């Protein structure tokens, strides 16, 4: 009898829809970000190959290789943090995890997520500060390309925000479905 569903039930259904949506959004954002990371890896290989070819065949250079490859590596790492976490590929020393079960395991898992969330939030707050300053001041790299540094800061910041959001989603999922197993990196 649908009409008789209590307010409590409706609240629960509403919450579960919200949770599903939140998890979905996170998955989607993580997938997009990891695609960008993959593209960056292809770009890194490409840039270095072009540099080698230019140096060897044309006695010239892109004059930006170590710099741009560096930015790409940083962006790649931070943009894939969330996705890597979602698929449980970040490693941990899971001694305690092998001993605890049920509610205790959930409590430990939530504590770990909370600690990780806390330090990441702390880092993100100060990355934001750096980003803000580099942007308003117009800081550029001390190289031929004079790249505006805030762009690099911004990508790292975005990666951290995605990761924070993914941590929340993982906490919610752990509460709903229990603590997931860690996987090996395939």
């Amino acid at each position, binding site marked *: 009898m649908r009409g008789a569903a209590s307010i409590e039930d409706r609240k629960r259904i509403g919450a579960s829809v919200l949770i599903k949506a939140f998890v979905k959004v996170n998955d989607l954002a993580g997938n997009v970000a*990891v695609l960008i*990371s*993959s593209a960056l*890896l*292809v770009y*890194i*290989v490409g840039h*270095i*190959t072009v*540099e*080698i070819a230019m140096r*060897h065949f044309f006695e010239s250079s892109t004059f930006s290789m*170590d*710099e741009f490859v*560096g*930015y*790409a*590596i*940083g962006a*790649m*790492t*931070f943009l*894939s*943090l969330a*996705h*890597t*976490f979602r*698929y449980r*590929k*970040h*490693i*941990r*020393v*899971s*001694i*305690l995890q*092998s001993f605890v079960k049920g509610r205790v395991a959930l409590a*430990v*898992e939530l*504590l*770990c997520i909370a*600690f*990780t969330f806390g*330090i*990441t939030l*702390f*880092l993100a*707050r*100060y*990355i934001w*500060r*750096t980003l803000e300053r580099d942007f308003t001041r117009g800081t550029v790299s001390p190289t031929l390309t004079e790249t505006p540094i805030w762009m*690099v*800061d911004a990508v*790292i910041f975005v990666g951290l925000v995605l990761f924070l959001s993914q941590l929340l989603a993982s906490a919610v999922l752990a509460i709903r479905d229990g603590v997931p197993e*860690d*996987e*090996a*990196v*395939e």
Partner: protein
Amino acid sequence: MESLFVAFVILLLVMFFLGLGVWVFAGLLLVSTVGLVFLIDMPLDRIGKIMSPLVIRSATSWEISAIPMFIWMGEIMLRTDMSDRLFRGLSPLTYHLPGRLLHTNIMGSALFAAISGSSAATTATVGKITLAELEKRNYSKMLAFGSLAGAGSLGLLIPPSIVMIVYGVLAEVSISRLFAAGVIPGLMIASLYAGYVMVVSLMNPEVAPPDREKPGLREMGKGLIDLIPIAILIFIVLGSIYSGIATPSEAAAVGVVATLIMTVLTRQMSREVFFGTLVSSVQTSCMIAAILIAAAFLSTAMGFLHVPQDVANAIGALDLSPYQLIFILAIFYVLLGMFLEGISITVMSLPITLPLILGAGFDPIWFGIFLVIMVELAQITPPVGFNLFIIQGLTGTPIMRVALAALPFFILMCVGVVLLTLFPDIALWLPNLLFNK
């Protein structure tokens, strides 16, 4: 001994955060932050201001770029028939060798070390190719993990090597001589490992089960043919370095391009192979890079806590004989290596230990090799040991079990250090020969 107290607190923090199961990169950032607040009352605001630019810098450094590329190369080999061919080819060839395919870890790492300058890239790439195959063939996990952990660190000793370059710049010694000096000690340690694997296999044949009938000459020949693709790849990458076409840091890109071309030529390229390997490589390198970034911040925290300086100064004040000095330094470096990664160890300790060493009459090239081996040991000691992390990442085996598997190889490397100390010419003979001095 204030610095001992500091070190003890750091150890407790590491045990707490990592033991609780906090993901390693976050755990290391937490250890550093809490350590700075607790031990020297550093305000949180200042810690944040220190952390932010250092994280950005270490995340965007050119030096780590080789890692994802080599991982991608290994990933492609795994998803195509290249790694399978490698094992099919080696299987008949190693049939009569005690330990059989276990030697792929050691030989593979030694070979790969000649291409790559980092131990993380060596371990991850070789491990990607070998570990699953060895498990499929019922080889002893302990020996497979241990030999990979130990041999993977040869990436630092066999040239090219990032740590040697850092040491050469700091100690103002010739990097070419250092590279030459690393070759024989690297091969020596690889031989110690191979010897150990053979002895264990002779005593307990089950660690390396035969997966086939006794091979004939024809099969051995076929095996050699199976090895051709890998041989071509190694030839191309090594050739690009030693002909001066690519720098050691660029060689990884050459390796990826060559592997991709070979995949296309052998008609194994597909969307699945290309994109699947990419995403998987991005995940693995994200895991490694995140820990490297956090480890760099930990070493900065240790710098602000003055741990390496204080301890090294204390050692300097002891007024030891040369052999005593080397012994104490070895212990110092092993302890430091439990928490810090290689380049940090080198950079932080060298200003203090190098004068001690030179004062005691040791050759700076020799000490460079000694230090590189110390750094290699650090790769396989818990709680912060990169090769252990990587093998855990590859297999899901808990780090303490991997560390246990690596223990015999840790001891063998220590034997290598003793030999190197007793017979310094193991390191010095080749550079003196090449650079006629």
